[in-house]
């Protein structure tokens, strides 16, 4: 049994195909002891596949996994000594909470007294003392989730794997459990790989994030790095750059402006920062976070300073402290912003975005074509026509 801790766990171009389909390809990742890593990506991008490969539940079709200098990808799951929390919890329905937690300890042939002591401790850790004698079917979703976590961490595994553990819980419980998992991680110092499709969850919990798309790594970095410097628009999309639209680079790139580039969006010139090397004439994707769009007064001197977009308010949603507003430019680009100012549909506003907050990504050709919302019609090229009213 390998419960021995490691100083680093290396995944070297790990891949897994199902027949023709590559569910995961070329995953290189080094996990340091004690780290909390989040695998982030949309549904079907290969997160569970990656986790199951790590756990040994799925054989690899490419690459290798190393625990320090020991190769482990050929070991069966029961020999790896990793703990896993499943999306559907996978609690043993015929065993009580207590016996579910005892299970792993008994598999290690620990003395009875040790089993009892450690499982009592684990039950206390997840606040389930009163429910220890119940069957999983008699517990609520959140309680089942705690049992699943306790069952995995009671073995003090060298690595804990969690597959979307909070996705079946309601919003309030999800926030609570998020804090609790983070607390457990900090108090027990368990190295954790956490799978989620929720960027907020990943950003708030992880030390490092791995963003996956269609089985391939897009970017690996700390939450701050990913938040401020996404390398492509796919990552940006995940990191809250809700405003993404195509543009053409007209100036900058490798020119005198250095990192600064000028892009053309249907005749409108905007100045932004290149998120990756990009050259003049190239198609690009422009990304702006809703919170980086500021509304300026019509006759503000800033109006002439550039990076101003004029648009008409189309939807206003009240969201407590502020309003989420959707506006559309004359050329039909849809933008989202947040503001404490009360606006009404039909108002015309001027928006400014600081050049360093407008990111220019290479390759805007594959941006998704916006679908026309109800009550509007799209023209043939996917651009939206002006509203009739």
């Amino acid at each position: 049994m390998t419960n021995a801790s490691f100083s680093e766990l290396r995944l070297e171009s790990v891949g897994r195909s199902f027949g023709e389909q590559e569910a995961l390809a070329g995953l290189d990742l080094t996990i340091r002891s004690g780290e909390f890593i989040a695998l982030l990506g949309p549904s079907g991008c290969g997160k569970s596949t990656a986790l199951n490969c790590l756990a040994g539940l799925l054989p690899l079709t490419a690459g290798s996994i190393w625990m320090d200098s020991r190769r482990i990808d050929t070991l069966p799951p029961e020999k790896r000594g990793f703990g896993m929390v499943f999306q559907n919890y996978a609690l043993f329905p015929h065993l009580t909470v207590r016996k579910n937690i005892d299970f792993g300890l008994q598999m290690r042939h620990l003395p009875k007294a040790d089993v009892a002591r450690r499982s009592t401790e684990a039950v206390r850790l997840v606040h389930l003392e009163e429910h220890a004698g119940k069957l999983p079917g008699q517990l609520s979703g959140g309680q089942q989730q705690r049992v699943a976590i306790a069952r995995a961490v009671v073995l003090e595994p060298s690595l804990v794997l969690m597959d979307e553990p909070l996705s079946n819980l309601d919003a309030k419980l999800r926030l609570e459990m998020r804090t609790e998992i983070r607390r457990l991680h900090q108090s027990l110092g368990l190295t954790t790989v956490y799978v989620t499709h929720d960027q907020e969850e990943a950003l708030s919990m992880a030390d490092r994030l791995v963003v996956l798309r269609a089985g391939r790594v897009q970017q690996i970095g700390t939450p701050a790095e990913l938040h401020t410097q996404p390398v492509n628009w796919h990552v940006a999309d995940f990191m809250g750059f809700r405003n993404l639209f195509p543009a053409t680079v007209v100036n900058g790139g490798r020119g005198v402006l250095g990192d600064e580039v000028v892009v053309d969006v249907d005749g409108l010139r905007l100045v932004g920062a290149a998120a990756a090397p990009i050259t003049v004439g190239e198609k690009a994707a422009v990304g702006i976070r809703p919170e980086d769009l500021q509304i300026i007064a019509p006759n503000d001197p800033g109006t002439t300073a550039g990076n101003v977009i004029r648009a008409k308010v189309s939807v206003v949603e009240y969201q407590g402290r502020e309003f989420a507003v959707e506006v559309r430019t004359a050329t039909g680009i849809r933008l989202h912003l947040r503001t404490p100012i009360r606006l009404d549909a039909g108002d015309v506003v001027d928006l400014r975005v600081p050049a360093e907050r407008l990111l220019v990504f290479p390759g805007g050709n594959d941006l998704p074509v916006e679908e026309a919302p109800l009550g509007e019609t799209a023209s043939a090229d996917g651009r939206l026509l002006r509203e009739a009213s």
Partner: protein
Amino acid sequence: MSTASRPMARVGKPTGPLLRHRLADRGINARLLLLVPGLVFIVMLFVYPFLYGLTLSFQPMDGGGPFDSYRRFFEDSFQSSTIWKTLKLAIPSALFNVLASVPIAYRLRGKFRGKRFLTTVLVIPITLGTVLTAEGLLNFLGPAGWFNRALMSAGVINEPLPLINNYWGVFFSIVISGFPFAFLLILSYLSGIDPSLERAASTLGADWKERFRRITLPLLAPGLATTFCLTFVLAFSVFPSAILVGDPTNTTRVISIAAYQAAIEQYDWSFASAIAMIMGVIEIAVIGLVQLWRSQFYVGSTGGKGA
């Protein structure tokens, strides 16, 4: 809520909900009437003949006390020994069917190519019927059958093994018709167990033996009990194969032969009915014991969408 718009909904007594709601809570409503045709059918085809047979069994043909038919059965060892002979066939063969199905079904529980083909092939013996099976057995296991000839030409044995027209002939026949049935049932019970449970167990350090013993088997136990009961009942009323490939005057004179002879050869309907009642009681006793065993196990959801 406005009562004016719903004249039917009277305001109930403040002490409790409406009677109709209380009844509905227990599943009692007008839809129960849909059960009536089914109930009539069951009463006509099952309850009535059963009660008729029961009364008949207390009216011995040659007069005497109401329990005379029963006494005759138990006092005559030629008759009463059929109970033991039948149990000796039915219990081991049902056990064999269940126990042999488990490892095979366990290996085949996942998805694999040709699963549908295999299950189709396995259904065939069920559809063949006992007479065809018996004929096949005679050809295959008889003194001049392939099996014995192959063994003899290989020099393993000098004389044909007596595999039919005795206990083993009937045993094989029961296995051939009962095994596919047991296998398919157990396979479906197994696919109903969430595969992630075993995966979870393996990440907790359990090898396949521990996973089977501590996770799969306990969750499968109720299914095993049910499968055993069904194959047992099938085997207990074995009749054609006991005659065709058995030794119907001696070692495989099963209880259904006794009942048949009483009814058709001696025209003693009271005695035949008594034997039928005894058969029923024994079957219920065995099933009761199995259910008692089963009640020790968890019987709730096995948490799975299955494979």
